[in-house]
């Protein structure tokens, strides 16, 4: 089985594995006992991984310090693979792909057409669950890249349920023939591939050009599902037009809106504490005022001894006038003012979120930047056959009624 198909327990030489450094930094490696996985914190020898169970955390001492660096070694899944792709690539993300797979009822009975392959992220998810995936990519460089990747991941050669073909499906349709640029291995007597597709995913700029080619490759005697993936609303309009023209029914366009939340904490800061803090500040201030007043009066008294002029206004009223430079002596005598002591919210210091010296309320916060739009998903269905085989029906009827009730309950 492929590295994606089989549930592996232990990390082994030659495995394709994913190294999780952080959520935004996941890297594929091929396990090789002579190799190292290099990060800016240091090098992790592959030999430390081999033989350990998948999911193991690996630690190394960081270069030049006494700290440790950690990675996790994971077995690839289509979803982790998608996360590992660089964001600039055009990717069908899991909220979309999982809805499409569900809506098109993907499972072991599904023969799927995917065009284009793109980054191949959706291909991996299809490949995990369907009978066969026929992926088409019109761009040659991307085709080669994807084919190589699918081979490396065992989708083409080991699971053997993926075929990728280099093709402009808008121009040339979906039939795969001998001589085409394709991963398909034709048998000697085989001239073309019988797709019998019952689920179709078109991620093309102009799906309406590809739609007319579908009839020849879809399964004839069942309901076939189709999903077109288009970023702009005008494309949806043209797509619906083409679907109607080509006999597709139950057309429905939907948008998938998904969000991720961060788990955070907000400090519980009660009004009572805030009031107490202000009272504390106030009392310190008053203390200061009283003290300064005492000092001021002392000073005045001292000065009085030297100075015969009496103050003309009530001292009490100007006792707060401490901005005036007092005598050097008084200044020197000024004791250091005690800082306010009641600091229930840790003001002035850097408080780590969740610091156990404070109380916290669990809150959730949506990601700072959200993917507000991926594409519009336009679904439609089609059944080509509209007759029944009367002979077969009669046989079935006789067989069923002759059996001693096949009813299972």
């Amino acid at each position, binding site marked *: *089985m492929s590295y994606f*198909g089989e*549930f592996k*327990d232990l990390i082994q030489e030659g495995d394709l594995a994913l190294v*999780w450094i952080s*959520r935004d930094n996941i890297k594929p490696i091929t396990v090789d006992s002579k190799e190292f996985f290099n990060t800016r914190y240091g090098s992790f020898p592959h030999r430390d991984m081999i033989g350990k*169970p998948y*999911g193991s*955390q690996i630690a190394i001492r960081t270069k030049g310090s006494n700290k*440790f660096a950690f990675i*996790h070694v*994971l077995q690839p*899944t289509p*979803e982790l693979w998608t996360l590992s792709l660089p964001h600039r690539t055009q990717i069908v993300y899991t*909220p979309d792909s*999982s*809805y499409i797979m*569900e*809506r098109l*009822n993907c*499972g*072991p*009975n599904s023969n799927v057409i995917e065009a284009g392959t793109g980054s191949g992220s959706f291909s991996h998810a299809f490949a*995990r*669950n369907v009978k066969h995936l026929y992926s088409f990519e019109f761009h040659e460089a991307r085709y080669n890249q994807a084919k190589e990747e699918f081979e490396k991941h065992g989708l083409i050669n080991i699971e053997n349920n993926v075929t990728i073909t280099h093709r402009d499906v808008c121009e040339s349709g979906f039939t795969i023939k001998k001589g085409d640029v394709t991963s398909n291995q034709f048998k000697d007597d085989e001239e073309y591939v019988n797709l019998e597709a019952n689920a179709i995913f078109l991620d093309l700029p102009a799906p309406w050009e590809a739609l007319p080619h579908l009839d020849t490759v879809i*399964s004839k005697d069942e*309901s076939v599902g189709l999903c077109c993936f288009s970023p702009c*609303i005008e494309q949806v*309009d043209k797509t619906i*037009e083409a679907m*109607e*023209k080509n*006999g597709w*029914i*139950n*057309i*429905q*366009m*939907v*948008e*998938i*809106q*998904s*969000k*991720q939340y961060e*788990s955070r904490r907000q400090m519980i800061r009660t009004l009572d504490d805030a009031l107490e803090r202000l009272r504390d500040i106030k009392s310190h201030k008053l203390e200061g005022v009283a003290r300064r007043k005492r000092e001021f009066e002392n000073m005045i008294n001292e000065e009085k001894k030297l100075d015969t002029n009496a103050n003309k206004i009530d001292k009490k009223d100007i006792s707060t006038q401490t901005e005036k430079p007092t005598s050097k002596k008084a200044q020197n005598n000024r004791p250091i003012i005690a800082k306010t002591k009641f600091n229930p919210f840790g003001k002035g210091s850097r408080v780590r979120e969740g610091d156990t010296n404070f109380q916290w309320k*669990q*809150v*959730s916060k949506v990601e700072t930047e959200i993917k507000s739009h991926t594409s519009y998903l*336009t679904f439609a269905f089609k*059944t080509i056959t*509209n*007759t*029944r085989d009367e002979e*077969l029906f009669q046989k*079935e*009827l006789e067989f069923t*009624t002759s059996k001693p009730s096949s009813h*299972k*309950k």
Partner: protein
Amino acid sequence: MDSSKVISFNQHVVLELPSGNLKIAELRPNNSISLGKFGAFYINDIIGYPLGSRFEINYEVKEGEEGFAEDSKEKKKPKHMQKKIPIGKAKLMIETPAINETSDDNEDRSDSIGTIADELEYENSLNNKNLNIKGNPSEIQELSMAEIEEMKKQYANTNSQDIINKIIQSHKEFNLKTKYSQLKYLNRKKSKFSKEFIVHKMTGRLLLNYLIDKGDIQRIMDMSEESIGMILNYGNVKSNGKYLVIDETGGLLVYFMMERMFGHVTENDMENKKFEGEIIVIHENEHVNLDLLKFSNYSEKFIKKHIKSISILDFFEPPTEEEINNGFTKLTREELSKLSNGERNVYQRRIKGYYKQCQIVELTKNDRKYDGLIVASTLQLTQLIPRLGPKIHGSRSIICYSQFKEILLELSHELYSDLNYLAPTLMETRCRPYQSVRGKLHPLMTMRGGGGYLMWSLKVEPAPPIPSIEIEPK
């Protein structure tokens, strides 16, 4: 006939009525099905056509084919009072392309009135000028409901379009309406008088919609299709996995998993294909509740083989092998033959219990680790998940569903501080359907709220504690 593609005998299917409502039916040979006010039909008429086909009930009955069906809504009445529904002939309809699945209030399910739809353009403000804004259908419609009922009987053997035409003729202000509201009006009428229905393949999606229609939203924990889709993908659910599951939706979640893992399984498949996957369902009560599987097309044998259930008590405090063996003595063939019938029955029950106990021991073995943990439970997750976690293999997914974000927020905080779980992630996904009519594209004006939230994490194995003094490699 391939029952995964074609309407087949003894299969469960989902019938979509003209009202948009869903009904689940089993297709027994030579029987009939009543759709209540929309009529009744013979099952044999629809067998052999592709699943997903649309039929119309036709009352031009030939001699000898006449019949009546019982209306399930009438069952409570005494036998002689029950209104019987005449059975018509179900005839396949060739679909015309103008049928779009969703629009507001299901008012745009147009097909035979496609001509008016085609004519539709933007109505500029002038067109609305002379409309009676306070007008409501019951005021401006000439026919009384009684008359319509009468007409329905009278015209039982004509198609619904004719009835609708009659109604239009009797509608005083029909021509005063804008084209768009004409279309809406026609669709509303159509859904009342149409005798069309669609025979859908039983799928998780339709089962879910059926339950929502029925108002069973709380029973299925307010789950949406898009959330289930995420569970299946993030849970890495595939044919060969062995999953630990808690399912408080009465089997809906398990049914979706089975579809994804096994697809449609015919009797042939069961013999020829090797299905490895297993779903181990842990339940909080004495007995597991997977009621909804009764609607599935999986055989009892298949279900028994791939779905195993165990109570939380047995899971966390399983009996030892010794205890089981002490409590039961296997009889030899010879001993068995000496038993009376009654005694043999008792013995059979006891041996069944014994095997069940053995299964518990097997499922809870210390070294047995599962390929994923999928939980839709209202038990407190902060206690539940860390206790189930050790049973999950490293690098495998843990995915929890809850109707409420706050529950999963608490859980993700819990897992975040536990080195055995990597990157707990809180997610929400919502599907927003559009009125998908060209020239009238917009999101539906109202939709069901809810749909739940998800927490995804990976089970990992923390590195052993770092020794304080490390020997440097030479």
